[in-house]
């Protein structure tokens, strides 16, 4: 059974807390899930929605439609009621007005006040009822509540019981477990980026708060002592990236996390990273711009910005993980390739990916164990002289940490000679510039091919081209469309730069029709593909209203 439990209310009503408890309960029950959060940019009031999707197999992304709607206020009830599917159930407080027949009314506020003496627990009463209606196991729910509330769990457990009592029998379920303990883990995209950074040996994070990039900042700040990281909150993004570059110069694996607006302030520092060939990892949690835009919403409108940011010409590595699991591995890969090729590496996520929970196979830390690319003090001592920017075939010069030897490590933002001294000798300028740009070749060899589904025989098919977090929606759309007898396929990029064109050309060659699907208004990957290959897509499906693309959006547009 594929069901969506949607909890809606105003900010400050505990939508997120309730949603997380329910998500953990479903996880404890062994159910595959995806949980998406959407909220207005404000501390109180406004719209707050938490959508937990339970699926029989690996859960896809978000979808429209609601099987259990738990509404905490009238405004959100009215807004979301139309999303209730046939056979769906509404759960709400008795004081809300509703004409829906399939409703479970619970006197949540009254019970919380009269029975528990704790008016704030009304949402937990409602959760008890909603979980019961949705057929979530009682024990799993109790465990999730104990984990979330610790010594304050008892009253909340009573609240759940009251809700369950009023709800009566489950209307949906039972759901058979898809896995047992230890086979799957539950993680958000933001946490996966943070965990990937720790696994990759990140030692330094400097950042400035900006939604949704902040999720990685708080994740790492909470774990800094345990994992031996230095986490600094800078006074702005200009300082943040330059602090990270300073740390990287001194040998620490360094990272910054931000969103498009903050990255705009980092651009000069990015160019500096290109010039001084100092590795840095930049996480950009995208949200719709321009300017402050929609601070708490999602979008994919920073691809071309990330690619073209920075004055001058220099190589860079850009990834856009498709889900939380990949966010872990690609963050680690970004650290590895930044070190290996001495380039800036950019990770493009978005609010949807950062805030969404999903189940995935346990992350394998050993698969991403950090490799050192630095000269050891002994190697450095053995050299007759040390030129930080020595000309090599690969373009990568041996990199040493300053202070470990008598030999100086000089780096300069001005054009420099191989030793790191300012030069306006145009011979040097050309040689050094070419050396830096040569690194793109080696980098390209480390880029994995795009994901193509199904894996062969694309002749005559309509192929959807996408990147990053839209993966699940496109994948689901393709399967949906194919179930109806149509022949669809997809090609999806998680590693975007350097852009692998070989597979693209093959797919373009075989496909009857190519349609780009992106979370923006102009088709940024489609433009990039055209620029790099001369191949133009035949159609474009874009969503840029701040909400994630869903399979239904795509299937509908394709059918048009």
């Amino acid at each position: 059974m594929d069901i969506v439990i949607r909890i809606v209310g105003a900010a400050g009503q505990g939508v997120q807390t309730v949603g997380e408890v329910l998500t953990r309960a479903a996880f404890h029950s062994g159910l595959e899930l995806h949980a998406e959060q959407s909220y207005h940019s404000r501390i109180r009031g406004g719209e707050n929605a938490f959508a937990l999707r339970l699926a029989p197999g690996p859960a896809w992304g978000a979808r429209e439609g609601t099987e259990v709607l738990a509404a905490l206020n009238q405004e959100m009830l009215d807004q979301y009621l139309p999303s209730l599917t046939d056979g769906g159930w509404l759960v709400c407080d008795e004081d809300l007005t509703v004409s829906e027949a399939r409703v479970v009314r619970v006197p949540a506020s009254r019970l919380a006040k009269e029975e528990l003496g704790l008016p704030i627990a009304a949402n937990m009463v409602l959760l008890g009822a909603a979980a019961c209606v949705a057929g979530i196991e009682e024990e799993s729910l109790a465990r999730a509540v104990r984990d979330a509330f610790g010594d304050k769990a008892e009253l909340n457990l009573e609240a759940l019981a009251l809700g369950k009592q009023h709800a009566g029998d489950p209307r949906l379920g039972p759901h058979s477990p898809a896995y047992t303990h230890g086979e799957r883990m539950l993680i958000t995209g933001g946490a996966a980026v943070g965990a990937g950074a720790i696994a990759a040996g990140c030692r330094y994070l400097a950042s400035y708060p900006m939604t949704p990039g902040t999720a990685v900042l708080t994740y790492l700040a909470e774990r800094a002592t345990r994992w031996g990281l230095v986490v600094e909150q800078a006074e702005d993004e200009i300082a943040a990236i330059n602090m990270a570059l300073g740390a990287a110069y001194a040998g620490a694996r360094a990272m910054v996390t931000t969103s498009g607006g903050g990255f705009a302030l980092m651009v000069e520092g990015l160019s500096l990273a290109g010039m001084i060939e100092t590795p840095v990892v930049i996480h950009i949690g995208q949200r719709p711009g321009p300017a402050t835009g929609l601070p708490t919403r999602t979008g994919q409108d920073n691809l071309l910005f990330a690619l073209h940011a920075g004055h001058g010409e220099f190589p860079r590595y850009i990834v856009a993980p498709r889900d939380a699991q990949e966010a872990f591995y690609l963050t680690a890969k970004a650290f590895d390739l930044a070190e290996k090729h001495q380039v800036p590496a950019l990770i493009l996520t978005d609010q949807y990916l950062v805030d969404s929970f999903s189940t995935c196979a346990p992350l394998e830390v050993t698969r991403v164990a950090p490799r050192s690319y630095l000269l050891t003090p002994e190697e450095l001592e053995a050299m007759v002289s040390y030129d930080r920017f020595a000309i090599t075939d690969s373009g990568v010069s041996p990199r040493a940490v300053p202070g470990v030897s008598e030999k100086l490590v000089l780096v300069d933002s001005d054009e420099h000679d191989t030793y790191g001294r300012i030069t306006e000798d145009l011979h040097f300028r050309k040689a050094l510039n070419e050396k830096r740009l040569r690194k793109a070749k080696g980098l390209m060899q480390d880029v994995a091919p795009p994901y193509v589904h199904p894996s062969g025989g694309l002749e005559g098919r309509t192929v959807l081209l996408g990147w990053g977090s839209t993966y699940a929606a496109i994948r689901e759309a393709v399967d949906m469309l194919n179930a109806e007898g149509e022949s669809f396929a997809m090609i999806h990029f998680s590693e975007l730069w350097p852009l692998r064109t070989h597979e693209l050309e093959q797919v373009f060659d075989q496909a009857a029709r190519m349609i780009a699907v992106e979370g923006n208004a102009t088709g940024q990957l489609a433009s990039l593909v055209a620029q790099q290959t001369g191949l133009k897509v035949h159609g474009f499906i874009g969503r840029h209203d701040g909400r994630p693309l869903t399979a239904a959006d795509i299937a509908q547009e394709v059918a048009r």
Partner: protein
Amino acid sequence: MANIKTLAKKQEQQVRLSSGHSLCAGCAEPMVVRTVLNSIDDPVVVANATGCLEVATSRYPGTAWNVPWIHSAFENAAATIAGVEAAYKGLLRAGKLERKVRFVAFAGDGGTYDIGLQALSGALERGHDFLYVCINNEAYMNTGVQRSSATPRCASATTSPVGDAIPGKPQDRKDLTEIVVAHHIPYVAQASVSNLIDLSNKVERAMAYDGPKFLNVLTTCPLGWRTRKDTSIPMAKLAVETRYWPLYEVVEGVYKINYKPKKHVPVEEWLKQQGRFRHLFKSPEGKSSLEEFQASVDENWERLLKKEQCLSGADAAQ
């Protein structure tokens, strides 16, 4: 000079920031904004940095602002208002405008102490004729309580969390008021939302000067300070009474402490009511942190008294 009646009357006469905004229950920010704007008689133009005030007052389908209002990117309120003021001066010079118009920038502590400091310093140094009001609630509240350089030592914030090894924020807050004083502008003051008449008087005195004016106003945030929603004003008052947040002004370089608490109230009284300092009351290390906190409050107060003594108008006249 303002009194409670004149303040109330002005509030009746003109509503420059209306009700119906979505700031939290217990948030003291609108009181600061209303008092500041109602203490200026001329038409005003407001520039607003990103933050709680901005998002909660300007949301479709309404706006709480009854004055021309511009929101720019986070770090630029001072630069933006400087541009508006320069254009106004140009229009005056060209004879296209005759009315006196005043310019006010509102920004939080994040947008002032941290990311907006450079723009503020530049506008102060260039000498634009404007009033900059820092609504200081001591952290980035709008984005979920991250520490700022206005956050006091030991306070818990999501990016300076309390852990086994670290008791909240390890650094002292920046003394921004004194940094602004060092720009030698005509008027600089510290105020608190608990003392609105004092705030109103300060705005009136400030607006008598041409050139840059600066106010640093302490404002309780029940969410970030983890205080009760109905104690915002008493909490701000306690910050003043414990000498943690002295009310003083520097007028053309002359220091004046506007209020000297008669008795010494330990800063603990203020700290213990706030969830962000709760950990200090649970451990022996917390006790020594409290002592250090008190020592630093005392030291700052003594230093301020000395400044008043040395740099008072009376001394200058001698």
